[in-house]
């Protein structure tokens, strides 16, 4: 698409392949250049240009005359205290909603349950933190749908590009879709401006793309973690930091002396941004998202330091996910771990937490044995 912007072609034979409306009379998500013409109309209308070729793609803006709050709403049978955790798309009827909004069937009615202490959502455990050796992103692999484990081996950490991954939490379909949209937009930016979009910039882009859907059932809570490289246009980062959070870096260094050792806002280094579909955008050094996040936070807060070594950081992340999956019903199965450095992301082998659990039990048994022997020896000496 970028090449077509540059050359001035808007409709080529290659174009319809992935941009034409599907035969189901539903427009595929990427309809930016065909939007004005409606569904099913001529694809090869050379007379009309899209106007601003460089405008960012916001899926809702052009062809919804009303606010998207009227679309994608679930009928009244949603229980507000227990939002659906996983929603499977159903085949559409022609009279149905525009497809760029992720399709939602009516939610699986939850089984009767004890009232929750706080609204439970995002049935997962994902975490990410930055340290001197880069950034670590880890997540469990259980996709739950109400009380059912829909998939015990799903991918919750999705790469966006070579130097950035995103952990996903919320509705799986929404997260997968928006990650792909973000990946596409980042790639377009890279082609147009010859440099990679920073993590903060991508987070802002994602946040602005999700903003029109605020108030709908769309649920995406992602932590983008990546490495910002050395750029001559590093001023953009600085301006963004100044514009949005006044004296952000000054505030950061005010909290603790260790923070002064961290990278200032415009230097290369690992970056973390938490983006939520309700509009939250936070930049920080440690985030955990999901129903298992309180359990993960307690492990991470105890063990996290900037000076961790790479194996220590990996084992900390694994331990945090393990403890969360042990206590949280909606997290479990395996743990995925990604390590991002200046050279890009590397994925560690997926580890089954069942093994970890048995190893933990072994270690505990040995410790109990050891303590009993100690006590026996002390008794003897007396």
């Amino acid at each position, binding site marked *: 698409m970028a090449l077509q912007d540059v050359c001035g072609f808007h409709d080529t034979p290659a174009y319809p392949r992935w941009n034409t409306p599907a035969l189901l009379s539903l427009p595929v998500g990427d309809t930016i250049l065909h939007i004005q013409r409606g569904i099913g109309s001529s694809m090869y209308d050379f007379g009309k240009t899209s106007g601003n070729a460089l405008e960012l793609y916001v899926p809702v803006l052009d062809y919804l005359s*009303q606010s998207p709050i009227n679309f994608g709403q679930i009928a009244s049978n949603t229980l507000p205290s227990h939002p659906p955790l996983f929603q499977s798309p159903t085949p559409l009827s022609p009279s149905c909603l525009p497809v760029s909004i992720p399709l939602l069937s009516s939610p699986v009615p939850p089984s009767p349950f004890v009232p929750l202490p706080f609204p439970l959502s995002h049935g997962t455990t994902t975490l990410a933190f930055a340290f001197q050796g880069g950034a670590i992103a880890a997540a469990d692999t259980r996709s739950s749908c109400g009380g059912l484990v829909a998939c015990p081996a799903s991918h919750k950490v999705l790469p966006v590009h070579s130097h950035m991954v995103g952990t996903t939490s919320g509705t799986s379909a929404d997260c997968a879709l928006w990650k792909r949209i973000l990946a596409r937009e980042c790639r377009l930016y890279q082609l147009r401006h010859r440099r990679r979009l920073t993590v903060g910039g991508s987070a802002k882009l994602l946040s602005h793309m999700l903003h029109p859907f605020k108030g709908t059932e769309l649920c995406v809570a992602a932590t983008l973690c990546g490495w910002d490289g050395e750029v001559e246009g590093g001023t953009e980062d600085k301006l963004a930091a*100044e*514009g949005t959070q*006044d*004296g952000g870096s000054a505030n950061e260094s*005010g909290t*603790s002396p260790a923070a002064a050792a961290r990278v200032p806002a415009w230097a290369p280094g690992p970056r973390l941004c938490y983006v*939520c579909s*309700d509009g939250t955008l*936070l930049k920080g050094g440690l985030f955990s998202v999901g129903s298992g996040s309180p359990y993960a936070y307690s492990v991470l807060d105890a063990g996290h330091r900037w000076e961790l070594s790479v194996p220590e950081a990996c084992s900390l992340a694994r331990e945090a996910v393990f403890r969360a999956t042990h206590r949280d019903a909606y997290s479990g199965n395996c743990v995925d771990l990604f390590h991002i450095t200046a050279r890009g992301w590397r994925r560690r082998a997926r580890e089954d937490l069942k093994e970890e659990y048995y190893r933990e039990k072994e270690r505990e048994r040995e410790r109990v044995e050891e303590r009993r022997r100690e006590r026996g020896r002390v008794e003897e000496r007396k």
Partner: protein
Amino acid sequence: MEYLIGIQGPDFVLVAADTVAASSIIQMKHDYDKMFKLSEKILLLCVGEAGDTVQFAEYIQKNVQLYKMRNGYELSPAAAANFTRKNLADYLRSRTPYHVNLLLAGFDEADGPSLYYMDYLSALAKAPFAAHGYGAFLTLSILDRYYQPDLSRDEAVDLLKKCVEELNKRFILNLKSFSVRLIDKEGIHDLERLPLPQQ
């Protein structure tokens, strides 16, 4: 859950905000800055619903900066406050109202310091001191009791510390730290965080 406070002196305005960014029961960030710099001498403090705060505040911020670029001079605090109010009111009866509570503090060469209180229904009031949040219930009477129109900078900081002490004592939530800024004719100055890190 969030707390904003502003105190206007004879030639300065002191503002403070807590630095917690929370999501349900978890504190996601301890050093989150809720102040948005609209121009060299105007600060917008913004709390409220999660995404609305940043979206609305940045929208106002960029528009104020655009005004400066187009016209060559900056908006006065009064003009900026009324501009903000108009935008908030316009969105109020749309399908996407912004649920934000604001304090706008600024210094104007002609009019001196000013502090504006605005709530989510876009009610605007110029006030000598103001606070937002549950903490306001506890601290407004302290401000009523001890505020003088001609208080010095140190007295204003002491008054702020009194308010923070009361919050630590009686407020059910733990608001550990506050970012503090002072606006005077020289611009915006960062003051030391409360409470002081050594404590």
